[in-house]
């Protein structure tokens, strides 16, 4: 157990980076994903087309490829610094937003159509109908799947380890390399830190899911 005591600061600093990646990417993905979902139900065909293409493309591309694209391809167009924390945030947000969009869209579809029709019939605009009538009613059913998207995001932050971001997995790998005889244990420690985030989140999703089911 000396391994953990000796390396606690390294674990913790990796854990903090993982938390930062999750929180920032999660926040951006929530905003961008909700915008994408709104585009998908909008009356403007062009917006729907853009949103469908984006969501299907990102959802069906391996996350590593999204990172590769940002790190190796985008800089050739003079856009981004090749490596680093913010590149990881952008890749993770871009990828996760596609799943957020799908979760929000299915929540929107679960709200009876008559609600939006009544809203439009009194003269609310598309944006008002969505923001004041549809989304507030979609929230209940959207939160449990969104938590699951965020759990997946938490685990997906580990892909950033391959791109020079010293988050939890990269920190654990360094500890393992420095202590080859206890490498297994070092990586198990990494697992424990992920579970600290994902298990409570999973339990919360389960509770909320039952609440939503009960309210129906």
């Amino acid at each position: 157990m000396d391994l953990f005591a000796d390396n606690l600061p390294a674990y913790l600093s990796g854990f903090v980076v993982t938390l930062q990646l999750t929180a920032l990417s999660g926040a951006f993905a929530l905003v961008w994903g909700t915008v994408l979902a709104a585009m998908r139900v909008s009356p403007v065909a062009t917006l729907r087309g853009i949103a469908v293409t984006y969501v299907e493309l990102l959802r069906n591309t391996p996350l590593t490829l999204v990172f590769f694209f940002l790190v190796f391809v985008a800089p050739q167009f003079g856009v981004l610094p090749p490596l680093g924390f913010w590149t990881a945030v952008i890749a993770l947000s871009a990828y996760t937003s596609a799943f957020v969009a799908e979760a929000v869209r299915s929540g929107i579809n679960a709200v009876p159509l008559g609600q939006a029709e009544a809203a439009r019939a009194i003269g609310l605009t598309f944006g008002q109908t969505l923001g004041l009538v549809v989304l507030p009613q979609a929230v209940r059913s959207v939160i449990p799947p969104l938590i699951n998207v965020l759990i997946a995001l938490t685990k997906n932050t580990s892909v950033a380890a391959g791109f020079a971001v010293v988050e939890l997995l990269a920190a654990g790998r360094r500890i393992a390399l420095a202590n080859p005889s206890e490498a297994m244990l070092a990586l198990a420690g990494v697992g424990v830190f992920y579970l600290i985030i994902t298990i409570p989140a999973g339990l919360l999703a389960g509770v909320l899911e039952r609440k939503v089911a009960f309210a129906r």
Partner: protein
Amino acid sequence: MAQPEPLVVLDHVDKHFGALHVLKDVSLTVRRGEVVVVIGPSGSGKSTLCRTINRLETIESGTITVDGQPLPAEGKGLAKLRADVGMVFQSFNLFAHRTVLQNVTLGLRKVRKIGAGEAEERAMALLERVGVASQADKLPAQLSGGQQQRVAIARALAMEPKVMLFDEPTSALDPEMINEVLDVMTALAAEGMTMVVVTHEMGFARRAADRVVFMDGGAIVEEADPETFFTAPKSERARDFLSKILTH
């Protein structure tokens, strides 16, 4: 005496749902203050006709004007027009997450941009008028069907519409609640509101309608004043339909 000016004019309107021709060359003029009852078999296109007037359904050819203005395409202009055209649905469609009072104030606040205090005052006056003021702070689901539909009427009236559309407003109600809704509608008609009402309530049609429009298979087959239509329908199809709804 000169007739009142036309308020809603449908001119040679056609609409398909896929291969189904739901509105066939429909022309209809509703004058200011007029109450038109639309009647006809299920699937004849009554709801679709109603919904094209505030463009909840788009049309493929022909024109629709409200107060002289052609229906705008999707956007701010359309939202503005819809505020002037009240609609009451068969299934009420009250905003489920908002109280009865908020259902009525929402349009006043967000569309008419009226301050909270005045919006509530006006909403309460309307709820009073339709007899559900005591339910103002409840959620729609806590009300009976008849009460919900009266709130829906108040919600539409709050926008001070030029015309009110009713799509089978009493068809989802238990029999004992039908009259409380029809009474509100009859009072509205007596006050001079322009109304298009899809309904099979012949009592209401006789009491309140200036004209009955009979639809079948997506077309307007016959138009007449209520007395003439119910006692001496001209078309075979109208006679057939009336015999069916009168025998039970």
